[in-house]
């Protein structure tokens, strides 16, 4: 379970990046955070990963305070960035092996990695290919494979479908759905309203560091989500 309680981040230059954000993502739930650039989506992710310290409030991962016990909290979270780069000189399997071991999975064999990659939709010839020769879609798939192998109960996705072609994005969302259905708590930051609508159990709209709207799937399903988003953006402009 992922929780943010009155989470606030003010930078040294007095910029308020996050203003008392509170949210909770339960097991088997996907929370999509929408918002313009600078709205505070990535700041939220960075606070969950303890890359920055909050100036107020709390971040809890499975009940563990991230600021107090970051290493313990990180055992229960996986992260997929907007642009998964990995080590270009390594093959896909070598990258998986390294990150799997960092994630605590030390007993996996070559065949296990092949199975994971096959399941995610990577073709066999990609397994031992250097990642620097991968397309963005392939790298994103490898990134989510790392998360799958770690098998943490919580997943943070920072604009994971940005720059992907529609087919690759659809495939990616299907994978996320599968993870959600397996009981993972997922926060996905995105600009892609269409994909958010497709996968989210809850959607939040962020503006200037504040969560200005939060609706469940039942609440937004009949609505024109794009119109709601545009209205919020206009209101606060």
């Amino acid at each position: 379970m992922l929780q943010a309680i009155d989470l606030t981040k003010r930078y040294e230059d007095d910029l308020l990046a996050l203003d008392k954000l509170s949210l909770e993502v339960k097991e088997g739930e996907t929370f999509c955070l929408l918002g313009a650039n600078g709205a505070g989506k990535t700041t939220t992710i960075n606070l969950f990963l303890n890359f920055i310290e909050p100036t107020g409030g709390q971040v809890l991962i499975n009940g563990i305070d991230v600021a107090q016990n970051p290493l313990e909290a990180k055992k229960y979270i996986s992260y997929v960035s907007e642009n998964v780069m990995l080590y270009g000189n390594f093959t896909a399997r070598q990258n998986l092996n390294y990150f799997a071991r960092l994630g605590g999975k030390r007993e996996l064999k070559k065949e296990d990695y092949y199975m994971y990659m096959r399941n995610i939709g990577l073709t066999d010839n990609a397994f031992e290919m250097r990642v620097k020769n991968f397309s963005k879609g392939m790298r994103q798939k490898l990134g989510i494979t790392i998360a799958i192998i770690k098998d943490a109960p919580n997943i943070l996705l920072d604009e994971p479908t940005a720059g992907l072609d529609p087919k690759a994005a659809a495939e990616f969302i299907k994978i996320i759905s599968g993870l959600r259905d397996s009981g993972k708590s997922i926060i996905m930051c995105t600009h892609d309203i269409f994909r958010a609508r497709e996968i989210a159990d809850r959607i939040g709209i962020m503006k200037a560091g504040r969560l200005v709207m939060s609706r469940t799937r039942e609440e937004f399903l009949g609505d024109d989500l794009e119109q709601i988003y545009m209205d919020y953006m206009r209101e606060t402009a």
Partner: protein
Amino acid sequence: MLRDIINKEMLDTISSPKFVFTFLLCTILILLSVYTGINSYRAELGEYNASIALNRKNLESQPSYGALAGLGVKVTKPPQVLSTIVSGIQEAVGRKASVNVAYDPSLVDSKYDSNPVFAVFGELDLSFIVKIVLSLLAILFTFDAVVGEKERGTLKLTLSNNVPRDRFILGKAIGSFASLLLPLIIPMVLGLIILTVYPDISLTGEDWLRIGIIFILFLLYISVFFMLGLFVSARTSRSSTSLLVLLFIWVTFVTVIPRAAVMAAGQIYPIPSVHEITAQKDAFLQEIQGLAPQKLNEWRQENPPQDTQEYQDKFKKFLEELQQDLTSKIDKKNAAIEEEYQAKRRKQEALATNLSRISPTSTLMFGAMSLGRTGIHEHERFLNSIKTYKPVFTKWVNAKMMRTLKLGSVEQPRPDISDMPVHQFEPESLNQSLAAALPDFAIMILLIILFFTGAFVSFLRYDVR
């Protein structure tokens, strides 16, 4: 986990084009430097042996002790076998000195004197390769160690796991350094093998020990730049900035500080030029030479000439005493002038050395030259040994000259050099070399600790976003 990070770092580096480039470059340069070092040493050895033989022949062919006293003995500096690795100042300073009754001996005829083209580019010895090329390669290995991971996005992904930052930076340092050592150690070992199998190269147990310690010094030097690279990489947010900063520091360390230190020491403690010193010595020599006829006239007035053997013996005895007295005065005066000059020079040299030790490049050169016995200390030791030898030779030749002098005869007995005192030189012992190199080791270790601590602390606070 630490092992995983080390393995990853090594694999990442070894599979990169920069590793292949470094390996090839190091192999070519290190082997080339050893080869040129060996050839240079063999040529020096050949010249040394020829010079010794020629000197003996010259001495034996002199018509009289008087001619021998004027010509003097040519003392040649024996080449150091470790100059194959660290040529030091060997090529720039003189290798031969004439020891005669008149002049204060000084070393002349450097390799650069005999062929100035060598001075244009300097020697391509192993210490030069380490000083310039390997320090640059160490920087190339580390300038993006941290910041590159940030730019690639792998740092965020890595630290999203429960990876302690201290372990990550430690793993990176160990793994990256180990993979940098591979392209250095393999060619160095090959170079040593070549050194052992080459004819004319005879290495004693102490030489091997010295080589081992020099290699440790080389590794420390490379580690300084490696840790510096890691430090700057953990202080910057762009790899291009990191590279620029490191190149600036490299230029400052390698070229600016050593030269600036020498210039500053020259300004703070100015010393008279060698020409001024020579002029002082020459003036005294002329003064003394002017005294000789005066003393001779005085003696003749006191001892009117007689055609007896007793008179001749008395006259020869007087001449010998006069000669010994005058040369002794010359030697004492020269020694006094020299001592004053050397004291000032040593003060300037100590200041230049200590100031330049801010740079690891200077510490490398001073340390390696001490251990290779090719530095300033060894040169001074040799020069001092010649200066010690001079009065011994002078006394012997004066005694021989006067005792065998045939008064009133043009024909003088040919010199017999079988009992001529031989110049002795005891090279610096390993303990002495180590004592001289100790500050250099200490400074390098201090810099390594300083830069690694800097990198470590910086990374703990590094903004990975």
